[in-house]
Structures are given as structure tokens and as C-alpha cells.
């Protein structure tokens, strides 16, 4: 077993709350997010998600929990063989939605994030900012109960960053618990939210709203 990346971390995310996760590079933000989006299990300690102890969840129970979580990966992790609209549709398809409604919904959301004219484009033909907006659209389309975003506005101009933050805030208003990992202090200052600060794998401050 390797060295422990996270230690002495204890916090609770109330349903429908909004949080920023911040700290220097290597502080453990991404590792913490990985625990939250169920890519890892903790080697020790207790992680409770949607009222269930992660350690007691059986492997076959995880997909239904994962479908309740929207993730914006720092490196986007878009599927290169699918068009923009199909990438965005994926969470709804995995949830077993009706094809026609899925496509309409995906197109509407793509237009909203400014990709209305890139519906059929493959991710590899998109710019960094466009990929980021596509990744965000994919994370929010299924109106997840928990939204986790790792540096979601790192590649877009301030105007688009504000627009995307507005999207997160709107989603939060309808009940989605939101955690945004970012270095961007402007972003943090503009949105009223609690701030979790990590340093060297430890939670050094938790400023409540």
C-alpha cells in the first residue's frame, strides 16, 4: 500500500449546499474528488455518501449511486469516438431515457453552453474551452444530486467562466449539492459558498457560508 494521500479530513456536505474546494497543487483535491465520485474506496476512515457507508456498498450497488453524481473532470475525459451531442447524451442514455427526448435535451443544453453550432463535432476538433463546456454539459444534463467539478473554468475566458458558474448556481438552486475544486479566487469571491481548503492532504480550514 502506498503513502496516504488524505488524512485528518472530516466534513459533511448538506443536501443542496454549494462548496468550493481549494488548496495548492498536490494538496489532494483531485484525490478527495475521486473518493466522492466513487472512483476510489478509502483505505481507512469513513466515507458516507447519500446516507450509505461507501465501504459497505457492494460493487454491483455502485452504478446506481454513480448515476446520481455528475463529474467535470479536469482533463475532460470526453469520448473521442462520439459527437458532442452523443457525449452529452451519455448520462441520460445510461439512465435508460427515451432517445428522442435525450437528443432534444442534449441539443438545448449544448446551445446554452455556446456549442449550438458544434453539435456533431468530435471532441478532438474542439478547442480547450469548447471541450470544457462540453464536459460541463455532460456532467449537469441528468440533474445529478451531487455535482463535482475539478477546475471547471480553467480553460475559458472570464465571461464564459461566469456563465458556467451561473449554470452551476442554477443547478444548485434546484437541489444539486455542488463541489467545485478551483484555484480561481475571483470565482470563489463571486459566489456565496462554503470553502474547504486542503493542504498536504489535510483539511486545514472549512469556512462555512
Amino acid at each position, binding site marked *: 500500500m502506498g503513502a496516504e494521500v488524505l488524512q485528518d479530513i472530516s466534513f459533511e456536505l448538506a443536501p443542496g449546499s454549494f462548496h468550493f474546494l481549494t488548496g495548492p497543487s498536490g494538496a489532494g483535491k483531485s484525490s478527495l474528488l475521486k473518493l466522492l*465520485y*466513487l472512483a476510489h474506496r478509502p483505505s481507512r476512515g469513513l466515507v458516507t455518501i447519500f446516507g450509505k457507508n461507501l465501504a459497505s456498498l457492494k*460493487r*454491483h450497488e455502485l*452504478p*446506481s*449511486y454513480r448515476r446520481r453524481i455528475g463529474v467535470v473532470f479536469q482533463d475532460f475525459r470526453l*469520448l473521442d469516438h462520439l459527437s458532442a451531442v452523443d457525449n452529452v447524451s451519455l448520462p441520460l442514455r*445510461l439512465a435508460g431515457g427515451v432517445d428522442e427526448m435525450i437528443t432534444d435535451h442534449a441539443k438545448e443544453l449544448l446551445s446554452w453552453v455556446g456549442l449550438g453550432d458544434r453539435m456533431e463535432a468530435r471532441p478532438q476538433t474542439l478547442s480547450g474551452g469548447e471541450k470544457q463546456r462540453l464536459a460541463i454539459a455532460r456532467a449537469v444534463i441528468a440533474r445529478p444530486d451531487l455535482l463535482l467539478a475539478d477546475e471547471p473554468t480553467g480553460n475559458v475566458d472570464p465571461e464564459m467562466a461566469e456563465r458556467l458558474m451561473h449554470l452551476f448556481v442554477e443547478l444548485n438552486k434546484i437541489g444539486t449539492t455542488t463541489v467545485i475544486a478551483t484555484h480561481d479566487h475571483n470565482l470563489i469571491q463571486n459566489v456565496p459558498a462554503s470553502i474547504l481548503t486542503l493542504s498536504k492532504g489535510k483539511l486545514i480550514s472549512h469556512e462555512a457560508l
Partner: protein
Amino acid sequence: MLPGLIAVMTYLAVLSAASGLAVYNVTQGWSTDLAQSMTVQIVHQDRDERERQTEAVLELLHRTPGIVSAESLTDNDLIALLEPWLGSGNVSDDLPIPALINITISSEIRFDSRALGASIIQIAPNATLDDHQQWMGRLVSLSKALESAAATAVLLIVMATAIIVVFATSARLAAHRETVDIIHLMGAEDLMIAREFRHHFMILGFKGAAIGFLIGLVTLYAISSLASDLGAGFLPRLALTGTQTILMLSMPFLIAVLAMLTAWVTVLRNLAQTI
């Protein structure tokens, strides 16, 4: 690449299965013919005594229930049997030739050839009854060995095909690891992911199996034509029964199903190792 390998495997499976079935059908035919016939041979230097014993045996045979016919071979018949070895016109009158009686028995009853043999000896001390059991036993053993060899070949080909599909599936899974990981994190269940692979490998498996099967059929047809050119009866024809034909025709489908299930199980086992 995979359809090519599966085509080769199917081709080999078709040839192995066809050979096994051909051997089975031919020996079935021969042993049925032999099981219904027996031969009595009477060896005596003196022609009159030979004929007396032959008449006595024929009279006994005609009285025995279960015997459909019993006919003594004429001198001409016996000479015709010897001529291929001694040459035409070389069978002299003073050559001592045994008398032969061909017996056909009913297929409906179980005939006790040992009891008949004992009765024949009592009235004709120089007679022996050959019910072909010894030769038939060897024929059946040889046939079983050939059929087992063909079945083993088919089994090994099936195993090799499954192993090829396991490697191909693992390679495809590794090539698409990133995609699989992402949709896994988005909540795709293992069965959903495995279904995609299952469909893909069923199509590839069927393509390869169909190609191999068609080439196998052409080969069998060519062999069959060459065999019939040699003259009827010299080599057995590959005549399949209804069930055997259905079994052969279903081979491409069975191989496609094998590829599909193997891929499915491989993906599920692989995914089970992730969180």
C-alpha cells in the same frame, strides 16, 4: 484479423467434423450389412463328401428360424472370387476349393450364431461358421478411434477459438480502457459494457465462421467429386443424415455464439477486478 483466425478455425472444424461423420456413417453401413450376413465354409478334399456336407448344412439352415436365405456359391462364383488373385483361366479343376454358403439373417431377431455353429458341426464336421464378429469388432474399434480423433480435433479447435477470442477481447478492452473507465464512472453497469463487446464479437465471429464454413464446404465438395471420379463404391460418399446436416449447417452460428459468450464472460471477469 479475428475473423480471419476464426475462419481458419471453422474451416478445420468443418473438415474434422465431416471426416468423423463420414467414418461413422460408413462403418454404420458396413456393420449393419455384416451383422445380417454369415458364411459357412466347408473344407474337404473329396468333392462328393464336400457336396454331401453342403447339402446337409443347407437343409439345416433352411429349417432354422431367423434365416432369410442360405445359398451355396456355384463353382463359377468361387472361380470369380479367386481370379483376381490367380488370374483369369488359371483356376484348375483339380484345385481344392472350399464350398461356401452365404447366409442372410433377419434383422428383427437376435440370432444365436454360436448355437447354429455347434449344430452345423454335428452334421458337417468339416464346416465352420463365420459370423464376421472378429472382423466387425476390429472395424468398430478402428471406427471408434477415428471418430474419437475427429471429436478431439473439433474440441481442441473450439478451445483454441475460445482462447483466441479471450485474447482479442482483452486487447480490445485494453484499447478502449479509457472509454470503459469513463462510462463506468458515469454509472454504466458491467452488463451494459459487456453487451457492447458481446454484440461486436458475435458479428466478427459469425463473419469469420461463415467464410471458413463456405471454404470448408467447397473443399468437401471437391474431395467428394474426386472420390466419385475414382468409381462408385471404392471410397465411401459423405452422405449425412438429417440431424448431421443440421449440425453441420449450424456450425457458423454455434461458433458465433461461442465468440459472443467468450467475449461476454471475458469482459465481465475483467470488469469485476475494477472497483
